[in-house]
């Protein structure tokens, strides 16, 4: 790896860490489970690494097979993760103002 690229990558890492800390510490405990499920789906972005491994030219068969398994598991995470997160968030979206009025 050439040093300039490495330094740029470290910058990206540090800034992402800082940004992540700022953004995620504002998430209320109410949404911690969907948060975990969502970040999990997002880190399923490793799918793009798996795609390259599974489909590139001149790679040995072993690499293709590893890539295939990785594509499968990360697709499960992406599809399942986003699907479940949405299902959970839909439940939090429901509000029942009429019920609250009775309570007060």
């Amino acid at each position, binding site marked *: 790896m050439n040093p300039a690229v490495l330094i740029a990558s470290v910058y990206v890492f540090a800034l992402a860490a800082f940004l992540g800390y700022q953004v995620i510490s504002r998430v209320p405990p109410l*949404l*911690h*489970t969907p948060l*975990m499920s969502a970040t999990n789906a997002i880190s399923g*972005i490793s799918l793009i690494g798996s*795609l390259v491994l599974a489909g590139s030219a001149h790679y040995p068969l072993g690499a293709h097979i590893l890539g295939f398994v990785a594509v499968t598991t990360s697709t499960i995470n*992406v*599809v399942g993760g986003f699907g479940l997160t949405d299902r959970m968030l839909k439940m939090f979206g429901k509000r029942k103002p009429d019920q609250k009025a009775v309570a007060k």
Partner: protein
Amino acid sequence: MTLTTYFMEATYLIASILFVFSLKGMSHPETARRGMFMAEAGMFAAIVGTLVGTHIVTWVWIIAGLAIGSILGAWMAIWVPMTAMPQRTALSHAFGALAAALVGVGEFIVHASEMSAVTRSALGFEVMLGALTTTGSLIACGKLQGIIHGKPIQFRGQNAVNLLVFLTMVSSFVYFCIHPEAVAVFYTMLGVAFVFGIMLVIPIGSADMPVVMSLLNSYAGLASAATGFVLQNNVLIIAGTLDGFSGFILSVLMCKAMNRSITNVLFGGFGAVVAEATSNAGGVMREISLDDAAMQLAFANRVVFVPGYGLATAQAQHAVRELAELLESRGVSVKYAIHPVAGRMPGHMNVLLAEANVPYSSLYEMEQINPEFPSTDVAVVIGANDVVNPDARDNPKSLIAGMPILEVDRAKSVIVLKRGQGRGFSGLENPLFFKSCTSMLYGDAKATLSHLAQAVQRV
């Protein structure tokens, strides 16, 4: 650079920005869903960009993987019940980490000879972290699902063995970084990392799962970020880091909510400690009849429900909401008190109650609700134990001393729904159950709650 490469890089940039925005949306339930759509769009763009921008020739494996993964993922998204969310999340950490580890091994097979030392160390980090998170998460998933016993598995000299395994793993990592040609060492590191993941999680009891889940979340994210370093791909670094930090923040919050350090959770083997009669039976547990309990609830002004893991195991979230609605229709004010580590993962109780249509505005965090307990007429504890144990506050010798609790013992009266007379998971005696204002209702939480609702209707 060709045009398609520019296109691919552009989609990565867009994806990164959308990911950050989507997490920002998570700061409020109203905006969270919209945020997730952004993340989905970002993901889609990145995938299309990759397929267009890289020189893909073999489509068979890709299409097969995408198809199988989508089917299984969709099946999970639709059919997994909310009560099984902790297991599902643990499993998805395992999948994510496995993907990172496999990509690492694949890179090793293809490019090992041309890697610099820096890339190799990122690769080693990725594979090591990915492998140990995979097995660790699978063990956690097994414990949560009940396939593996939830009690900590411990043996003499465990920490010494773990240390040995850890040192073997790290030394093979270092050796691999210096000697790229040592193929056997690389695979040794991979194998030992798988073993270390198992060793790391088996001694941890189910009650500590919220911390373990958060830590594994963090590792899985960092493994993805390391993949980004190996592939020199910024969107991987960004998404992985966001995931890693989210897990890290959650671990810190969970540890704080138990007043314990991460080292203590990982190496303490908490649940195994046999109660050393800290503050023993200062009285008798008083049982109450359903009708008396219903009477108390029906004529109360303020009722607070305190759910714990028992609510999840009994699947009683709908029953509690029905009882609450009944009470509200009689003019009783009903609130729910949620302890940060109630259940088996961060936010577990909130999701369950939301599933049962409880509006999130009636869910209260510990700091908000604690000052309200003295003016609460009846606090109903449903399958929670350690999070309401007053010993944590009053008895400095207690094993859970200093852990912040929901102060239900300050309420005018307390009704505890409990499966049996046994102790909680930690094996600690809970003096709350022996207080004069406390009465016990034994039985399955779901059945008890629906019987209570019927009894309230008769009042």
